[in-house]
């Protein structure tokens, strides 16, 4: 992969849906540029249009105003330069894990497919599960398989739509480390939509805060920490409370009077 591929530019992007014959503004004047190889977390309350934003980047929503460019080209539909991991693993139950990982591979010989599948199962730590069926996997393992499937096409940009949202807290923390490891290995752009402030800070080079109705970017915060990050460090906590403030969830320190 050549360095410098996978730059995402979003300029003056707006999107509205028609609900009961009235236009409903979902995204309003979104501007963001994501350089290749960056990890960007998008966080916002529900209804802020983050999923719509991902769908536009993915090419599933094509009717929008403004520009959504990848490497300078307008996004006009789905393409293999973008991959996605959904909140539900969305593995097809009638295919084995290996066949699921190969789902998006097209025009490859049987041998090439085998190699790519093995390589990616190993990357996500699922070697040995190639011929298992999705219903035999735990939630975390299923999500690993979904990540392998999304990466098998060698996308320049990987979109993650709350991929760890349905996992239990411990598995989730473990998978965050795994995602970081995979990102460091693949060196591709990753865009993570999440509800989890800690997850957003732990993984993101930048955290984009969106607010809802209509969805706008409220603030973009750079996360300067080196990796791996310490969730309990003072700086981490500082940024966490700064973000929580944005959602009016900060702790109100009572005044203490003493004489």
């Amino acid at each position, binding site marked *: 992969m050549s360095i410098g591929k996978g730059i995402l530019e979003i300029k003056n992007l707006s999107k509205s849906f028609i609900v009961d014959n009235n236009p409903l503004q979902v995204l309003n004047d979104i501007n963001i540029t994501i350089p290749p190889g960056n990890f960007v977390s998008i966080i916002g309350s529900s209804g802020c249009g983050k999923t719509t934003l991902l769908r536009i980047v993915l*090419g599933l929503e094509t009717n929008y105003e403004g520009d959504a460019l990848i490497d300078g080209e307008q996004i006009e539909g789905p393409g293999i330069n973008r991959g996605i991991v959904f909140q539900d693993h969305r593995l097809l139950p009638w295919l084995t894990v290996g066949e699921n990982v190969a789902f998006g591979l097209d025009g490859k010989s049987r041998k090439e497919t085998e190699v790519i599948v093995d390589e990616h199962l190993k990357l996500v730590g699922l070697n040995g599960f190639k011929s298992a069926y999705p*219903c035999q996997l735990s939630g975390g393992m299923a999500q690993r398989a979904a990540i392998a499937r999304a990466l098998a096409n060698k996308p320049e940009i990987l979109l993650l739509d709350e991929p760890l949202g349905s996992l239990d807290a411990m598995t989730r923390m473990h998978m965050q480390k795994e995602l970081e490891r995979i990102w460091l290995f693949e060196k591709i752009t990753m865009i993570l939509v999440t509800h989890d402030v800690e997850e957003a800070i732990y993984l993101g080079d930048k955290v984009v805060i969106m607010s809802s109705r209509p969805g706008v970017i409220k603030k973009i915060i750079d996360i300067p920490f080196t990796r791996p990050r310490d969730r309990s460090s003072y700086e981490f906590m500082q940024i966490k409370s700064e973000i929580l403030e944005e959602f009016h969830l900060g702790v109100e320190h009572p005044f203490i009077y003493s004489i």
Partner: protein
Amino acid sequence: MLVSITLPVLLILFWQLITSTGYVSPHILPLPKNVIKIFLSLFSEERLMLHIVISLRRVMSGFLIGIAAGFSFGLLIGLSRTGEKIFAPFFHALRQVPMIGWIPLIVMWFGMSELPRILVIAISAFYPMALNTFTGVRNVPSEYIELASVYGYKRLKLIRRVIIPAALPSIITGITLSLGMSWVILVAAELLIETPVGIGRLISNGRETCNMEQVLVGIITVALLGFIMTMMIEKLAKVVERGRSIHQEL
């Protein structure tokens, strides 16, 4: 296996009990041993085998034509909203008409031949297959279709690789129901579209000569053949559904 056998065994014992004690007249319900005797004599004369072979051929031809047509039609109205709008009302109206009602008309058109017998079975097998294929196709989760479109699946590939496999449990239900329907209609078709051979004929001969043993031989033969074929389809279903039947987690 042993549990499944309990009910038939109890039923036969009960049958034996009420007939051998004379509680029920042998004219109404013959003794089990007499039924077995008729069964064996019919079998040794090779007449039973002939009835079975002819009836099996009718059922299989009608059933296969019916499910092939039902599958294609169900897929068409499942995939296309316009197709559904055009054909569905007509389909739902027609499927309410009992097959027996059509027989006079079909006989008028095709005469008393093998074709109308098979046609009647095929039409009966068509409805459940079409309906279940349609439902299966419509209930494919939109998430799967979205996933396929992310990977640029074109229509044909989408149908082959996603929609049909996802609809498979429903399609198999359709096949099973169609098979049952084929056997049900077989007997009616053989009774109403006169034929010298077939299990239906065997039953109606038995009725005309007041030979209840022979009627029971016919009924039991249909039940057994239907049961064996359903079993075979269930085996087939297990093979094609592979992973979906496994539920334990590792």
